């Protein structure tokens, strides 16, 4: 081919089928707002991007967008929001992603006096008002006129009554995804929530330090209403300590525990694990993601015994937390099991053997497993002996490198470049030393993802001890990204080359 010859064609981007254009535009999606400008290019682009944004919102990957704020929060009839004046005259759906966030405040502050935060809520709402820009409108008017266009909806940082929440939802007849994040109910008049026939995805989040009973009441209220129609559930609460208190209402409402969550196939959880993993209910889970959890005694053996009830259906298991979360019982996480530990070697060995003594359990459908990157012998053994041998159908293994450096970013600082080089070298050395390919005969791909390190672990967890390696000292500034990937084909062709050299 002559590189200097310019080849031309009259074929245009409009000749691509919409699904191809969708694939291309999807790759431009860096964050919630990155796609919006491209809606202006062409009506087809607008339609495709609207679909992409809606899909993300429905999958709980984005919060509803746009966000409207409560600007006056008195009684139900006087609750006002602010939106662009044109929105109410808009013909058709004014929401690009068919989604919306209704917020009382632009953020909830976790570490201040929470009672003060609630008592100043009214001023906070009025502060949201942006004089001269938008139009103030009664929330009831807004939701009754436009609520039917929404397929996903987020309630965020709201202090309000049960009645108002039920009333808002009654106008959202088409929603499929609902996020309830950081709401505080001012009464306990838990009237029945409206029927939402299409609702299949629910996320309940609370991170504020407050009385645990409030969280449980809010969570239970929604779960009682929608438990049996949900396909995906996300539960995030730091202080949810007694799952049975929530389940008691649910069980009495449903007349028994055994049919609870009968359609649920995806669970993402960062509260008490035994909320779902106890004997009360057995949803047919296909996907289980366990994120960082708080104050919960957990170890590999306990975890496997808890999740074994899903062994017939589970296809993907993601343990999205650092190793110390999985060694809670052993006082100080893996520190207890490392060679530098002050504990006697025989005691360390005894604890490790106990943690690994998982009964013969198999997960015949599990094809995807994510776990923290191992940096100690104990962690390597846990991955091999507590997990991988139980997953005979495994095809993808993801190792989560907390604090890893992303090779896709442009580093200018020499230290960062050196860290990246060290990381890549260590990863290559690591993969030369382990043989997951032999252990899992169906394994097709291993990838390493960088994960942002939780600062709470480093600063306040006195028991947590990090290995002093370059891998641990670097910081990942983004939530996630791939740093390494390798396939069985590559492994086999490298082995072939080595054999030929010999």
């Amino acid at each position: 081919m002559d590189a200097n010859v310019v080849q031309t064609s009259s074929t245009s981007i409009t000749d691509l089928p919409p699904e191809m254009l969708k694939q291309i535009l999807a790759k431009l999606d860096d964050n919630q707002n990155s796609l919006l400008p491209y809606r202006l290019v062409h009506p087809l682009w607008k339609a495709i991007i609207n679909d992409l944004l809606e899909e993300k919102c429905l999958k709980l990957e984005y919060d509803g967008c746009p966000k409207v704020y409560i600007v006056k929060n008195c009684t139900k009839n006087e609750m006002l929001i602010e939106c662009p004046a044109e929105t109410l005259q808009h013909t058709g759906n004014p929401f690009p992603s068919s989604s919306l966030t209704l917020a009382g405040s632009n953020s909830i502050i976790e570490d201040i006096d929470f009672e003060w935060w609630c008592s100043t809520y009214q001023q906070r709402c009025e502060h949201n008002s942006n004089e001269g820009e938008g139009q103030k409108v009664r929330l009831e008017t807004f939701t009754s006129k436009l609520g039917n266009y929404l397929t996903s909806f987020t309630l965020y940082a709201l202090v309000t009554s049960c009645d108002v929440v039920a009333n808002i939802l009654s106008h959202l007849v088409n929603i499929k995804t609902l996020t309830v994040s950081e709401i505080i109910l001012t009464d306990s008049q838990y009237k029945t929530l409206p029927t939402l026939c299409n609702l299949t995805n629910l996320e309940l989040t609370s991170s504020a330090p407050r009385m645990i009973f409030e969280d449980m009441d809010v969570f239970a209220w929604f779960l009682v209403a929608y438990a049996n129609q949900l396909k995906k559930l996300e539960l995030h609460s730091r202080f949810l300590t007694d799952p049975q208190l929530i389940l008691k209402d649910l069980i009495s409402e449903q007349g028994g525990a055994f049919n609870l969550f009968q359609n649920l196939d995806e669970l993402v959880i960062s509260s008490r694990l035994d909320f779902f993993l106890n004997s009360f209910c057995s949803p047919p889970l296909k996907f289980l993601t366990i994120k960082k959890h708080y104050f919960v005694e957990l170890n590999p053996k306990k975890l496997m015994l808890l999740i074994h009830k899903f062994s017939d259906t589970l296809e993907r298991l993601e343990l999205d937390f650092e190793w110390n979360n999985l060694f809670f019982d052993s006082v100080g996480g893996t520190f207890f099991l490392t060679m530098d530990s002050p504990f006697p070697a025989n005691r360390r060995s005894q604890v490790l053997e106990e943690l690994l003594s998982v009964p013969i359990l198999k997960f015949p459908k599990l094809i995807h497993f994510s776990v923290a990157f191992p940096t100690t012998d104990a962690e390597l053994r846990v991955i091999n002996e507590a997990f991988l041998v139980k997953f005979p159908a495994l095809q993808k293994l993801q190792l989560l490198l907390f604090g890893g450096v992303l090779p896709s970013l442009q580093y200018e600082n020499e230290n960062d470049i050196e860290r990246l080089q060290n990381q890549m070298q260590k990863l290559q050395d690591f993969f030369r030393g382990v043989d997951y390919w032999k252990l899992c005969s169906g394994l097709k791909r291993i990838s390493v993802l960088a994960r942002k390190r939780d600062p709470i672990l480093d600063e306040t967890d006195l028991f947590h001890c990090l290995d002093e390696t370059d891998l641990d000292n670097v910081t990942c500034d983004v939530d996630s990204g791939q740093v390494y990937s390798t396939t069985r084909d590559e492994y086999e062709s490298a082995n072939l080359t080595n054999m030929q050299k010999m």
Partner: protein
Amino acid sequence: MALVRVISSDGAAFLVSQRLAKRSGKLKTEIETFRKSSDNSEAQPEIRIVTIRAEILRLVLQWLQQHQNDPVLPANQNEQDGRGDAEMGQSQWDRDFLAPMDLGIVMELILAANHLEVKGLLDITCKLVESKITGRTVDEIRTAFKLKSDFKGNEEEQTRLENRWCVEN
């Protein structure tokens, strides 16, 4: 060496090894179908590609030739796993290969790679188009891709207001 004749929409025939042709999912299926239906195991398969003209088919085969020892990527590669994305696999040769082409040829290559199920080529061509969009203004994108606005009435202004509403909050 077993060969296959691949014929473009404008009648040009390319004689390529079956090993190379099978790196295209579509050609692999066609060759296997031919084998099953043919009594003569020595017969040379002939495959007509009615949607791809000679110049584009030549480019696809040239790309396959260059990448004949790469691992074959599954068509439905998981995005999060990343491999298969162009930034992981694009070589200097790929960049030189794409450099002289105008966007029209790139679009034809995308369509051809999609039709013939050549994931690696599809990835790098889509990535090239993506790079022509990223960071550009609406007018620059319309100019680059020879697009008209085509919005009816005040729809463009309305879209602008919706965007502003989303971004401001």
